């Protein structure tokens, strides 16, 4: 028996073959009958497709099928369907009436018929945080959508756009065809790599929390494996058009899947184009193409797959602003990243990515009890972010704090209300002044004639021309990653299942700045602006590359920094599950190494001995253990408890103090420890399902580096803010319940209330990028009991679903979120921040309090309908299905929901005025919609 299914908790799909006699006779024909049911719910699926011999039929809405004139003998029975995992079994047709009885198959853990997997709606963080250049936010949250889990479905689909993170966790464990997708440097999997491939990413295995997963050890958050092989795709062709008013406005998607042919071959092709001239936020645009191709060969004992995909995407980003700017421009969707150039809108912050992947995997099933998957993956390509760079020029960013009216209140020694009032009037009348003044920046370059002496260090080689003050450059990550993964599942007995595997990842990333646009000038020079301002006297300091001093930079040249990080990670893991009548136990362990080094390609003038060449390799040995018990009190009630202890290597970019400029590592880099526990109660009946979960996770001894530009007149440099010994805790509860009120109406309620906060007062070492000293300024930051900025920490939702027969349904959701705290600036929780401020005064409280963003209520409505066109047009294939799905979100058009906020990392230590650098925010979209029309045949 071949099954394409994965095996959960030691349970194999069991086909119940009823009434089969043991003799075969050729030349005779039989009628084969049966019924296809969902293994879990024991209910029929809609849209099931059964083929045997040369015939194929669809199942009735009750799941029954009947195929006539099937030749006697061994026949392959192939079951496919949009909602189910494809399955193939061999049946022995040896009676004129071969009755297969009830055949149970597993549901795909993916979206329901016609609905759009919300993956694509959760773009990588649309708003950049210009200060904290290395913080990656929850770019992988879109991978954690499971529509058979009402809690996670709502958490990601409804609250994802508001930056809700289940349990406050960030890292996850995402695999595609067995290949781990995480970037070794940051630990995040980027959803941008698979954007626009919704049609072929529907088949997923998903575990949440510490529960055992069969393809990997997992993480505190859980794990996802997307089965994106040709054999996983439902046979047929699908063409869809999506329209929305959010990040992109249009999407066209075409997918064709052969299904598994009798020869055992299957192929699948998918492509899409997503675009918007302008998205919801002014100045943002979107242009993404996606390509996917896969071939599978199914044999008696295995399945070989080759899959390749790519999603070249370019998009203009939105900015985060202080409230003053939103007030002046009278919109919460103001975006200072764009401005008019020659009459057209141009966005300065453009992210573009093209990181294709090729994956080969072989699933070997020597017998019913063993499944062994081996995958090889290769990913490569660039991720780049553009921005305006400048040398010896005034900040081109129009909402720079010195341009704003409040500067004349909070930024100057003697407040000047006349200047403040004049600026308020000016910006209210001319909000266009708060956009980038491209034409002006170009003209500044056009009139800046200069002579550069001793170009490239060659004495007497002097060049005169228009030296660009402002340029557009890309920060480039050029990645190359090889991955090997093998994992095996073996059912030892009906009580015992074991899993295990090995994964090895070798990743190389070259990071550099690349000049993209000289903006009218003739050249740019490879100098370090910040060193120039503070390191007078040593002419070497200003050189970004001493091996090519005074180098003129033209379009396409690398400058600023250029270095490579090489990392190797290997993990071996094993797991055993024991299932008794009332008890399930599991234990799992993982051990491995992470090693990495840095190779600099430029000899930095400030760090000549620590920037060029290969640095010593850093190595960390790590392990993780976890285990759990489930007690099935009776068929309706069960409880479980799981616990884990992880010892993990530090993040690579948090081990180098400033990997862009030098190979200095933080003091005594060490692994961090995670202690985690979760427990839950589940109730299951035919009309009511409920889950109540509690969790607590302590992370201790982490190192975090915040990097930002410090505008303090005495610093004027990028600063690396190294926090060591950071401890945090996430504790909370989650609840979900679904009830069938009538045959046609069901209700879902979910809630999550958590607390994610710092639990100690770590030490901070501050290293500047513009002075060669290795000795940092150190101080303690008092951040104990401050919340982490991980999105709303309380969410509640009530959803009602009306789904009568005839293939249509409508949902209404009422949602409430609260306790979304801004991420704190640790430096504002120091003695220095309130030096000479009276303890307990209003100013004192303002410095030390943490802002909670306002709570918000939203209402969404969504629905869909499918038409089987063959009912109306007899000529069409019986599977020709037209479906329309859509939704309207934030129906009340609440445009005042701050989805994220953060404290600026700059602080006014001179006057201890927290209003000089106020918090920055981004607002969630007001009323928005999307609608998809899809034709499948």
């Amino acid at each position, binding site marked *: 028996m071949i099954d394409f299914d994965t095996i959960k908790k030691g349970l194999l799909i069991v086909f119940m073959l009823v009434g089969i006699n043991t003799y075969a006779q050729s030349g005779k024909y039989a009628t084969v009958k049966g019924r296809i049911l969902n293994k879990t719910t024991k209910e029929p699926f809609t849209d099931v497709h059964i083929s045997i011999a040369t015939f194929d039929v669809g199942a009735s809405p009750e799941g029954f099928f009947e195929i006539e004139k099937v030749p006697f003998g061994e026949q392959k029975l192939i079951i496919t369907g949009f909602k189910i995992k494809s399955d193939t079994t061999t049946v022995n047709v040896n009676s004129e009436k071969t009755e297969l009885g009830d055949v149970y198959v597993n549901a795909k853990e993916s979206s329901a018929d016609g609905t759009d997997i919300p993956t694509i709606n959760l773009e990588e963080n649309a708003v950049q945080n210009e200060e904290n250049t290395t913080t990656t936010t929850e770019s992988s949250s879109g991978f954690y959508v499971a529509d058979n889990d009402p809690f996670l479905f709502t958490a990601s689909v409804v609250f994802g756009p508001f930056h809700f993170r289940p349990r406050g966790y960030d890292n996850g464990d995402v695999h595609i065809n067995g290949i781990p997708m995480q970037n070794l440097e940051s630990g995040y999997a980027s959803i941008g790599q698979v954007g626009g491939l919704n049609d072929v990413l529907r088949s997923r295995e998903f575990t949440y929390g510490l529960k055992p997963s069969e393809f990997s050890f997992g993480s505190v958050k859980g794990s996802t494996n997307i089965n994106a092989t040709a054999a996983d795709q439902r046979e047929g*062709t699908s*063409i869809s058009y999506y329209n929305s008013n959010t990040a992109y406005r249009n999407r*066209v998607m*075409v997918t*064709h899947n052969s299904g598994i042919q009798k020869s055992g071959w299957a192929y699948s092709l998918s*492509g*899409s*184009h997503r*675009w918007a*001239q302008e998205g919801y936020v002014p100045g943002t*645009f979107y*242009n993404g*193409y996606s390509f996917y191709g896969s071939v599978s060969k199914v044999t008696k004992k295995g399945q070989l797959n080759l899959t390749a995909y790519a999603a070249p995407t*370019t998009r*203009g980003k939105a900015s985060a602003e202080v409230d003053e700017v939103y007030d002046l421009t009278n919109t919460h969707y103001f975006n200072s990243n764009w401005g008019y*150039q*020659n*009459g*057209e*809108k*141009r966005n300065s912050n453009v992210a573009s990515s093209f990181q294709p992947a090729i994956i080969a995997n072989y699933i070997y099933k020597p017998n019913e009890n063993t499944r062994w998957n081996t995958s090889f993956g290769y990913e490569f390509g660039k991720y780049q972010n553009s921005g305006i760079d400048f040398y*010896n*020029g*005034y900040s081109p960013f129009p909402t720079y704090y*010195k*341009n*704003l009216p409040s*500067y*004349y209140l909070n930024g*100057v020694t*003697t407040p*000047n209300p*006349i*200047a403040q009032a*004049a*600026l308020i009037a*000016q*910006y209210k009348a001319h909000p266009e*002044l708060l956009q980038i003044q*491209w*034409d*002006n920046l*170009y*003209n*500044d370059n*056009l*009139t*800046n004639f200069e002579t550069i002496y001793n170009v490239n260090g060659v004495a007497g080689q002097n060049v005169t021309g228009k030296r660009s*003050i402002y340029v557009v450059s890309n920060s480039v990550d050029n990645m190359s990653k090889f991955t090997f993964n093998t994992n095996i599942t073996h059912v030892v007995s009906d009580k015992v299942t074991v899993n295990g595997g090995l994964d090895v990842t070798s990743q190389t990333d070259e990071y550099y700045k690349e000049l993209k*646009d000289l*903006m*009218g000038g003739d050249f740019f020079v490879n100098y370090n602006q910040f060193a*120039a301002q503070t390191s*007078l*006297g040593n002419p070497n300091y200003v050189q970004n590359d001493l091996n090519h001093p005074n180098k003129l930079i033209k379009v396409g040249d690398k400058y600023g920094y250029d270095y490579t990080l090489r990392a190797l990670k290997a993990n071996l893991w094993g797991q055993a599950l024991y299932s008794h009548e009332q008890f399930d136990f599991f234990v799992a362990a993982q051990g491995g190494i992470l090693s990495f080094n840095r190779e600099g390609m430029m000899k930095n003038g400030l760090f000549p001995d620590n920037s060029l060449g290969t640095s010593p390799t850093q190595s960390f040995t790590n392990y993780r253990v976890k285990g759990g018990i489930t007690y099935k009190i009776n068929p309706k009630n069960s409880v479980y408890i799981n616990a884990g202890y992880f010892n993990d290597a530090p993040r690579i970019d948090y081990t180098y103090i400033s990997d862009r400029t030098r190979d200095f590592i933080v003091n005594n880099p060490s692994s961090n420890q995670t202690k985690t526990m979760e427990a839950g109660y589940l109730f299951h009946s035919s009309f009511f399902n409920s889950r109540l979960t509690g969790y607590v996770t302590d992370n201790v001894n982490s190192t975090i580096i915040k990097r930002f530009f410090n505008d303090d007149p005495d610093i004027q440099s990028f600063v690396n803010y190294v926090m060591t010994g950071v401890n945090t805790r996430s504790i909370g509860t989650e609840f979900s319940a679904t009830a069938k009120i009538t045959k046609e109406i069901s209700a879902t309620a979910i809630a999550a209330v958590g607390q994610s906060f710092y639990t100690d007062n770590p030490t901070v070492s501050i290293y500047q990028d513009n002075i060669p000293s290795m000795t940092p300024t150190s101080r303690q930051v008092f951040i104990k009991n401050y919340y982490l900025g991980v999105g709303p920490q309380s969410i509640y939702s009530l959803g009602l679903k009306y789904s009568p027969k005839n293939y249509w349904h409508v949902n209404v959701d009422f949602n409430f979120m609260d306790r979304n705290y801004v991420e704190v600036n640790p430096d504002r929780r120091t003695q220095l921040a309130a030096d000479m401020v009276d303890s307990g005064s209003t100013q004192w409280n303002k410095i030390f309090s943490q802002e909670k963003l306002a709570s918000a209520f939203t209402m969404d409505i969504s629905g869909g309908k499918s038409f089987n066109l063959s009912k109306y047009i007899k000529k069409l*294939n019986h599977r020709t299905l037209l479906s329309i799905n859509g939704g309207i979100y934030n129906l009340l058009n609440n445009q005042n929901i701050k989805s994220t906020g953060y404290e600026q990392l700059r602080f006014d230590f001179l006057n201890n005025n927290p209003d000089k650098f106020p918090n920055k925010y981004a607002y969630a979209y007001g009323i928005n919609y999307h609608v998809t029309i899809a*034709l499948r*045949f």
Partner: protein
Amino acid sequence: MKFIRLSVLLFTASLLINSCVKQDPTAPPSTANYDPNLPVQATIKNIATMGLNMNIASSRIMGDTTISGIVVANDKSGNIYKQIMIEDDSKAGVVVYMDKTYLYSDFPVGRKVYVKLKGLTLTNYKGLPEIVFTADAAGNTTGIPSGLIGTYVIKASYPNVVPVEEVSIIDIKSNPNKYLNTLVKITGVQFDGTSNNVPYAQASSIASGTSRTIEDCSHTASVVMYNSGYASFQSLTTPKGNGTLYCICSQYVSTVQLLLRDTSDVQFTGPRCP
């Protein structure tokens, strides 16, 4: 059926390729030759005289008058901070104080500018006529805020001939008001005995500025040159020889002082005067 399927596929595939690929807009045209030709109602000499006729630290808010001039000095080297000096055919100069750094990028030496004075303030700042945004009773001034510069200071053509008047140390010391805020050329001068072969200024951590002395070759007249500790040439060494000096003539209360735009203004290529 196959044909229909294929044609639908091809049609949709063509939609995929149909694109509206966003390209960056074309480069904007240079405005270097543009002159808005605004009507000018006063000469800089009128304005400078008005400023000098006021007591030090007094000021007046200006009416609806526009002046124009050529930029003769700016902040490019950091020796001058947040200011430009403009001069017109009346051979007088005035400081325009703007609350913004790196003014040189918008106001290179040789650019013609119009200044709409309406709403701005003319002040006598320690003996120097300056156009500022506001000035309080104590004489503290605020430059034109960055967001308002475009409203008051209108850029016009570039480049233009930069006016320069050849003078002697005695000329400027005997009649400083005539030369304030203008670019002058002085020949046959050198740094005096203690000012040569030393840094142009002490580091900013020690002093915000340093006075050096320029003398003529016969040691009969001398004048202060004031150099900022924040200037990019602060640490460079002053030359020993004599030669030609280009500089802005300035004044601090009753002290006449010279301001460098950059060290290229110091052309002391000759031998040291005995």
